């Protein structure tokens, strides 16, 4: 199939997916009993204040009308205004998203650059002592709940050894965040840990599978050294399933970011989402879900496109 055609089709589908997401999320949100007003305005609020709030936010209108209205403002690039934070949702996201991206992208990069070679190395050393050791380690890293791991790291590195600060960089701008690399260490490590564990497992499995392929034998017969066989052939063939996984990993990364942000006092998207959920701040909640879903859709799309680039077979599939 033509790449251009494919891309257009996928993009259209992506838009459809986002649309489904907004409908589902919107409906779910408004299916919640009680509505947000009482929670937002507090126990002392009067019935009038609640009614006024509902009217002002359009919550007293029928759901389809509200949805259409929401969609219309959305198309104008307006995500609404937070009920509680006194900010436009788009501004909030603008402030928080980059911070979370710094964290997740760094964690993902650190995680992947370690996980991929690690997984391959494990596969090559399959059933040797190192494989068992690394496997056990990655199992432990994987099975330690993130909040537990974070706490252990904080206990060890900030309270006992005092190597790193207990808080992530507190600056508002990215420049300020990057100005304090030491403070980034623990949050990034916490975020990367499970990533390393998961992806080294996937990579190990994929590599093992490919090592048994006949083409490996062919390459060896051509005099390629083990390292060359691994990097030139096995690596790329094993990478495809891992790339596919990466696309779906975006929401997991966000989920992880939430815990890391909580632990390290780093107000990013994860926390924004969390506190919006806690305080029934619908516009923010919707905005966050939208951002996360767009990111996920882009993630899967990118993963698919990269896969098409890496694996020509996917490109020419008939039907």
């Amino acid at each position, binding site marked *: 199939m033509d790449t251009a055609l494919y891309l257009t089709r996928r993009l259209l589908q992506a838009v459809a997916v986002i649309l489904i997401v907004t409908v589902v999320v919107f409906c779910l949100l408004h299916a*919640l*009993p*009680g*509505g*947000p*007003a*009482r*929670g*937002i*305005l*507090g*126990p*002392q*609020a*009067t*019935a*009038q*204040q609640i009614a*006024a*709030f509902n009217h002002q936010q359009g919550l007293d209108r029928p759901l389809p009308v509200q949805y259409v209205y929401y969609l219309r403002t959305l198309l104008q690039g307006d995500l609404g*205004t937070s*009920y*509680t*934070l*006194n*900010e436009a949702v788009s*501004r*909030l996201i603008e*402030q928080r998203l980059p911070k979370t991206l710094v964290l997740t992208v760094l964690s993902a990069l650190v995680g992947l650059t370690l996980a991929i070679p690690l997984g391959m190395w494990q596969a090559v050393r399959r059933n040797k002592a190192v494989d068992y050791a690394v496997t056990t380690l990655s199992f432990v890293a994987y099975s330690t709940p993130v909040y537990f791991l974070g*706490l252990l790291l*904080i206990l060890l590195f*900030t*309270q006992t050894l*005092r190597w790193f*600060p*207990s*808080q992530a960089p*507190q600056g*508002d701008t990215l420049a300020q965040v990057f100005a304090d690399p030491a403070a980034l260490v623990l949050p990034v490590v916490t975020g990367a840990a499970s990533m390393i564990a998961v992806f080294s497992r996937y990579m190990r499995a994929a590599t093992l599978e490919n090592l048994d392929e006949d083409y490996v034998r062919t390459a060896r017969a051509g005099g390629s050294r083990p390292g060359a066989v691994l990097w030139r052939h096995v690596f790329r063939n094993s990478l495809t399933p891992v790339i596919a996984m990466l696309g779906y990993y975006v929401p997991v990364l966000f989920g992880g970011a939430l815990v890391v*942000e*909580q*632990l*390290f*006092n*780093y*107000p990013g998207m994860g*926390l924004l989402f969390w*506190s919006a*959920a*806690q*305080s*029934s701040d619908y516009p923010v909640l919707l905005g966050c879900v939208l951002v996360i879903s767009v990111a996920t859709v882009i993630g899967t799309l990118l993963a698919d496109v990269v896969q098409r680039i890496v694996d020509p077979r996917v490109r020419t599939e008939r039907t």
Partner: protein
Amino acid sequence: SRDSINYALPANFTPNWILPIGTPAHLNTNNISIANTLWEPLVAYDGSTGKIAWNKAGSLATAADFAADNKSVTITLGDRHWSDGKPVTSADVKFWFDLIKANKTEWAGYNPGKAPDNWTSFKTVDDRHFTLTFDKAYNPQWMLANELSLINPLPQHVWDKEGDAKKDWTYLNDAAKNISGYASNPLWKTISGPYAVKSFSTAGKVVLTANKKYDGGEKPGIGTVNLLPFTTADAEKNALRSGSVDYGYIEATDLDQKEQFTSQGYAVKPWSGWAITYMPYNFENPAMGAVFKQLYARQAVQRSIDQTSLAKVVFNGTAVPGFGPIPQGQSSDFLSPVQKSNPYPFSTDAARQLLTDHGWTEQGGVMTCTEPAKCGEGIAKGTKFEMQVLSQSGSTVTDNMMSAIQSSLSKTGIKFAIKTAPVNSVLSQTPPCTASQSICKWQLSFFGTAGSWYFNAFPTGDSLFQSKGGSNFGGYSNAGVDTLISASTTSSSNQAIQDYSAALAKDLPVIWLPEPVYQISVIRSGLGGFSQDSLANFHPAQWKWTS
């Protein structure tokens, strides 16, 4: 750091409002505290001096003279100036008054029938004197504490751009919607309080700097005040442990680590709130409403709750048992002896007795109504004493308390199911309702991890326990109590409110629970010269480095 202080804001709170007037969504305790350090209130009726009283040093008014009939008050303003040098005059108060009058439904402090509805007129006597007239006679202490304390003189000469109260309201509120302008907008430069905003980040960090032009009685003691936001209490505690916070907090469960903090040069001081804590019954609930309406049933429930042990064990001794509608953490003239002495002490045996006396028999571990005639009106045969609470999530202490309550209730034969949700969700899902509404399925509600209800200085129960009261979630209704409540606000003696205290302690409109402290503060030694305001506001101007 002797000329600055780092104050930890409560977890998951970011300051986001500067204006002393606004909607309930914006005017929460912490935003009000910040606003009040910029624009001093007319009457600072609070707990900042150690007991709840009028703190004249922090007020713009110097005197409030009630007429003999208690139907009006004349207030005298001090000789004070705005930071731009203009004097503070009656016109500034009038400006506030007009704004609120015209926009009362949007205003956070509004309650139908109360201020400004019961203020019939504002009369300017001169630049420093004005008279407020009421619709009837009021208890002056109540009026001062609960209504006049709401007034916040505003710089009319700068803020009255439109000359129209409605438009000004909109103009000011719109201006306040731009957080990034808080430090730069000239509008916010004309202040009367001890501090000015130096920076106000959208992420929540606020830096206050002493107002050089301040001519009031509460001179700022520390040049720079940093208000720090924290994502979670744990994050805050980590910051405390690493010493980057001067005034922070811990949780009740952390109290056994007190030494760790004291050895780091901190003092640990509980900050008690002027509040009560309870679980409302939903008297309108189709399944259990009829049972809740029976006093003996409520007594059985109340007697199954061991407040003393809860306060001591679950709250690590920081909470105070509460038996009625008046806060018991502080001594006050409002508390009746009946409430104080706990009319329904803990005894699951007595509670069982109450139920078996009224036609309930334990079946399979749960009390079941077997003699409907004795059970009471509307309780069918076979009704099981099973109730569900929707409880605030996110606090270990609350979870533990609920477990303990569940356990002791089960000893009485009452099944108590717990469901948890974020506090906002609890509030939304347990509103006042009528039996036919689908939202009326809730039975018990708990939103009091840090205290259910914070009172104004005068602890009236008007919106709480009055029939159809705005915050009377469970639909409690008792004509006798209604009378006592209105008496407490109008009569000038404290007997009325004591009677009210006694009546509700006996009638159990809700399940009374121990009152936790507002927070357990951890304060760097050397920081002193202030009391923690039980109305839960903070007053940076009172903070001083003493050593």
